[in-house]
């Protein structure tokens, strides 16, 4: 490869990088921060290392149902009923979206 071609290639790569960065939407800060509250007990991005359920890659509807059941008491719990009571349905849906999008 000639020196000139390397420069050209680098130029294209940089251009693509910039276009990509500009086109990329800012991350959903609320979803990310809400999900990060869970990760203390359920692992970073929901990848639990044991003793608590893995949330990464969890089916969205399943996540929402569990949280609603914790809230209503339909699913008994030692601590999750209180956590669930602290979040609105909209917030729970945001968490569900975030975890469903994580690779298991």
């Amino acid at each position, binding site marked *: 490869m000639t020196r000139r071609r390397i420069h050209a290639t680098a130029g294209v790569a*940089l251009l693509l*990088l*910039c276009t990509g*960065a*500009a086109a990329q939407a*800012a*991350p959903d*800060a*609320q979803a*990310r*921060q*809400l999900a*990060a*509250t869970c*990760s*203390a*007990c*359920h*692992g*970073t991005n929901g990848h*639990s*290392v*044991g*003793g*608590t359920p893995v949330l990464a890659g969890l089916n969205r509807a399943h996540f929402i149902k569990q949280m609603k059941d914790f809230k209503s008491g339909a699913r008994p719990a*030692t*601590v999750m009923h*209180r*956590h669930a*009571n*602290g*979040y609105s349905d909209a*917030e729970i849906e945001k968490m569900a979206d975030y975890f469903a999008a994580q690779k298991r």
Partner: protein
Amino acid sequence: MAFQRRDFLKLAAAGIGAAALGACAAPAGKRKAHVVVVGGGFGGATTAKYIRMWGPDIEVTLIERNPNFISCPFSNLVIGGSKTMADITHNYDALRSKYGVNIVQAEVTGINPGKRTVTTSNGVVSYDRLVLSPGIDFMYDTLPMLASAEAQEQVPHSWKAGPQTVILRKQLEAMKNGGVYVLSIPKAPYRCPPGPYERACQVAYYLKTTKPRSKVIILDANPEVTSKKGLFMKVWAEMYPGIVEYKPNNAALHVDVATRTIKSEFEKIKADVLNVVPPQKAGTVAALAGVVNVDNRWCAVDFTSYESKAQKNIHVIGDAISAPLPKSGHMANQTGKIAAGAIVALVNGDPVYANPKFANTCYSFVDNKQAVNVAGVFAYDPEKKTMVGIKESSGVSNAPSEIEGGYAQAWASNIWNDVLK
């Protein structure tokens, strides 16, 4: 870990120049923003990791004086004999290898907010933004006889996990059957509200199973048990009758170090093992930065970014802040993530997330297997500009259980991993 000269050369390179320019505006002159985090506990290590995760273009340096992370949560179980120091000690390797955090083992000796520099025992480093996670230090003005390292070997606080944890454990092992252990608790706020009461349970468990004629006397400066009151009072009455004696409104007034004698307003007790937890303030690093502005003890922050109200470009998280939040490792982890998100947004020119919300979860062991929890969700109130506990979400366990002991173990494994791995 030896301090590496090349680390500081790298830091110096990162610190040169003014504010970062946009990548596409000036691709040749682009300099990475540099965030320095002081303190590698639950708060600082979390912040360093999450900034690198969410803002991979930001350079992050974590300055910590100790070679390893030693967890305060679970250190009471080392004192009680059911865990070892190895169980609560973790390294910083993954922060370096997996997340690309520069780890620097050094003592911070000065901070210049105007020049944006941190002076350490091993050189000077520049920052664009500084995060302080200094934890707590002790106030010895009322108990000056406990200020020296020698005094703390004889009368340990064991309120920072590490050598102090081992000292207390060894003293308890050496204590005779029929001996008296006295625990002195300072007035709130202090690090880990239920921590002293869990400690009393752990010592009582050890003594009940090995030296059953011994006593645990709690001298509490507070008018009542400050956390999980009903649960702890029941545990002491039912699991440790004749061993645990609880005496509220008994702040330590004087300690005779040589004879391990403590004087409070209503008591004078000669102990066989004397464990005095002194009153606390933000770790001394906070004072070096000029961010201590509440009662000469704590740091006021903006709860959306954790930026100091006293100094620009300096963020404070964890136990050191003045907040209606418990001073817990879990809260340090949570405030660290809000700070990390805000710092990434500020560096990238994005809006800072305006409505932070997070949860606290705290387990206390009442013996070697059973635990209880206190938990709750806190939300930012934009009118009051503070964090407010959500009533329906807060509360404690009904009773101690082995199931919760298992969850407490899971909590520890997962939070240590979330902080460090």
